């Protein structure tokens, strides 16, 4: 794996999802998985920060006064209904642990749906940086991670889902996606395995 043409996409690292008092933490089964996934993501980033990998964060936030045409529906509407991820609130801010990487991360702030490619300009940034390989960490497994991963694959990127750096609402969700759905369009690997590939001596 060539670190120079690789991007790490951080999908949805907001306080409401990762912090101990985040609003969405309560709906996650075995919530200690969140801390473990975050710890592994941070560890991975510390190693990646030493390599020429592009790191992009795509937080999601809802505007309080949105035009009715762009108002979220379905699951997104339910999340907004809980008062979670409101733009300008603590819940929508990036989780504090990411601060140590502020000089490394490029943040794309205006995501409003599951998909990090929808109306965010992500594709332009990836093209500009010459990215060919996309690594995805974040949550939730079956929504934002899957939506972003599928589109990345459809756009022709070589996609790898970091299976130990993501979490979904249920254990079943994580299992089904990692075993059945992600392999339809992407590689699945742990952060340690990917780190081995990134650090391996390479013949260009």
């Amino acid at each position: 794996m060539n670190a120079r043409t690789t991007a790490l996409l951080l999908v949805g690292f907001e306080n409401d999802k990762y912090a101990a008092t985040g609003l969405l933490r309560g709906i996650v089964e075995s919530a200690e998985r969140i801390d473990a996934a975050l710890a592994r993501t941070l560890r991975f980033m510390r190693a990646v920060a030493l390599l020429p990998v592009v790191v992009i964060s795509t937080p999601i936030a809802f505007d309080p006064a949105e035009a009715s045409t762009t108002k979220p529906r379905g699951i997104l509407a339910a999340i907004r209904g809980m008062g979670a991820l409101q733009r300008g609130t603590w819940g929508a801010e990036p989780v504090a642990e990411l601060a140590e990487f502020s000089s490394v991360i490029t943040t794309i702030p205006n995501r409003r749906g599951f998909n990090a490619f929808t109306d965010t300009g992500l594709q332009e940034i990836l093209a500009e940086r010459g990215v060919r390989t996309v690594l995805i960490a974040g949550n939730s497994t079956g929504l934002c991670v899957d939506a972003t991963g599928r589109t990345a694959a459809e756009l022709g990127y070589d996609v790898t889902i970091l299976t130990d750096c993501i979490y979904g609402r249920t254990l079943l969700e994580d299992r089904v996606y990692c075993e059945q759905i992600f392999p339809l369009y992407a590689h699945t690997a742990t952060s340690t395995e990917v780190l081995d590939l990134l650090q391996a001596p390479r013949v260009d």
Partner: protein
Amino acid sequence: MSTNGTEHLGPELASALASALGRQSDLHVEATSRLIEALSESENKLRRRVEFLSQVVFELDDAGMLEYVSPAWQRVMGEDPMRCLRLPFRNFLREGYRQTFDDFFADTSRTRHTFQAKPERWESSWAKFSIARVPDGGFVGAIEDLFAEQSARSEIEMLSLVASATDNMVIITDARGHTTWVNGAFTRRTGYTLDDMEGRTPGSVLQREGTSRDVARVLGTAIHEHRSARAEILNFTKTGDPYWVQLQITPVLDTAGEVTRFVSIQTDTTERRAADEALRARSASLEERIAERTSELVAARRRAETATNSKSVFLANMSHEIRTPLNAIIGLSSLCLTTDLDTRQRDYLSKVERSAQHVLRIVSEILDMSKVESGVMTLEHRDFSMRTLLEQTEAITLHLAQTKGIGLTVVCDAEVPDFVVGDSVRLQQVLLNLIGNAVKFTERGSVDVRVAVTEREQEHAIVQFTVSDTGIGFPNEMANRLFDPFSQLDNSPTRNAGGTGLGLAISKRLVSLMGGDFQVKSTVGVGSTFSFTVDLALGDAQALMRQDMEKRDLAERGRTRCRGARILVAEDNELNQQVVRELLESVGAQVTIAGNGLEALQQLDAGHRFDAILMDVQMPVLDGMEATRSIRERSEGAAIPIIATTANATVEERQRCLVIGMNDFVTKPVDPDELFQVLSRWLDVHRDRVTPEETTPAPSAPTRDVSTDIIMPNLDLTALEKIVGGDAAKVTRLLGVFMTTTQKTLTEMDVCVASGQIPSVGRLAHRLRSAAATVGAHRIARKCEALESSIGVADAPARTARRVAEMHELFADVEREVARRNQSAELA
């Protein structure tokens, strides 16, 4: 690697395509997610049902390995369900019952099988196993615990036997407690027949005023809650006579575990209670007297124990406090006396040294006395030469006698065996005491010492020592008081001769320890004769010579070994530091001083290496015991010889030192020969092992950092490799030690977190930190630091738990890196 298929589109078009694709996919994504949610809910529902069952539900794969077991597995099979997964199902059946499962497993034409067997873990319980073959592969099954059913059935059998054969009263009721049957013994004792009782609760018939309401209520509740109960209660017969019964009520269960009836077995205790009552009345006054006396005795014993303890502690402390500065005074004076001095300075200094020696002697006597009194004084059994001992004793005391202008003769009979076995130091102590006293109380004439044999057998001899003087003497009634501790002849003109008044008391006890007697004769104005005997085993002249040579050789070897040796001296007293430094540097050792245990640890943490550590036991901040414990917990400290130096020279202290992990022991004030003898033992062993200049590297030994080929973000072995001179095998070994100890520490942390002992986590983190820093696991070290600092804060428990969890993660990473590194090292 695939290429980006949208590159040819240009940025704007590509972005538009991305957004369009994105919007399109969102709906599909949400649909899939909802399906998964429905599936989750359905699986949860199913799981709840299975997990609620009292039967075990299990699933096996094609190979007969457990794929799933429901929580009831723990209760029925006696094993933790999580530990059983992926293990062969047959292993959980007792040996004799495995074949029936194996037969079914092998015969693919059979789809179902039900059998009874005993689980491997339970001694007597039976279980019913039902297994079905799944057409797609694998098996599902259920296990039903037959224990409850069996025990109920056997209980009924037992009760029927008891009911018909016993003299005890038996009542059987239905599940609501209404009587359905009584036995003959019941009717005989109470006068009530089954007709009287049937359909009524026993309590409503048998209990009247005088029956304890509390006991009745306890029984009623037990029946109501379908539990068994035991009680003693006052009942009344049909004619109104009171009687006491001890009763046991047992619920009888049907196969479904439901209560169908109760059986109550009752023993008449009326007579026993009457007898007890009488006995109680009789013994009450006696008990009171005994209790009174006992409490007096307990109080007296406590007072005595407290007094003894405080005395021992006081003596030990005093001994320490005085001997430590004395060590410095004597050591420095004698060092100073070896330098260029003018006559006056030399004279002053000699006096200083002599006075200090005197004080030391007094302290030693006090310590000896306390040892003898507390029974911890032990005598040595070594070969020594009697004549050499007498010569030395004479040489020491002759100067005293000559100064006073009196004569001193020492005569040893020819029959006295020369080579004997015993404690020469203690024997000389007694002799010096007697001769010293004799000289002290004699103004003219002489002191004569005579040694003779009074009894000689093949293997031992009783030797008598007599010290006579022509001194002032004392009246006979004084003779016994002389041996009391602290007694002195207060009216004596020589009272100012000094002394503790302990010398004779100690001597008498020492002689008694050596199997001998003391005798005193004295006439005022004429003189005194003190004599004592000791029982000595006969020794071997060659052994003695060998022993002497060995000692000298050892000390000499110690001096040689010290050349170039790096010795860490942990000692809080600056003067003592200087003394030991001079001693060691005089033979070419490199000395590093640490002012307390903590500083000693810091020296090791800073990567300094030592061939031996001289460790003072009592130090501020961190004492020698604690310091040793910490050093021994470190991988780099496991092998360093640690030699205790202490002025607190008790047997217990020596044992404590060895138990805590020290290797040897030197008493302060430090005797150079003794110190070098001890060092010779330990420097020898140690330097052969790790000193680089003495290690001949094997030609093929890798001196290169084996880990440079691998990127290890969590482990920086540079420092460790430097310490072991690039020896990859040593690095592997040290890493092994680190991994084992860290694993242990992490487990301890988990336990502390689980039990809320947050400060202990801090201490463990402290311990782990330096070890982690040593092997270059800097992230773990930093995490430890963070952990230590978060102990005191308000949300410590939650924060600590999180940090410990992170520590596990970090450790798992280090573990992987160590494994990879070891693999490469092996290949190299």
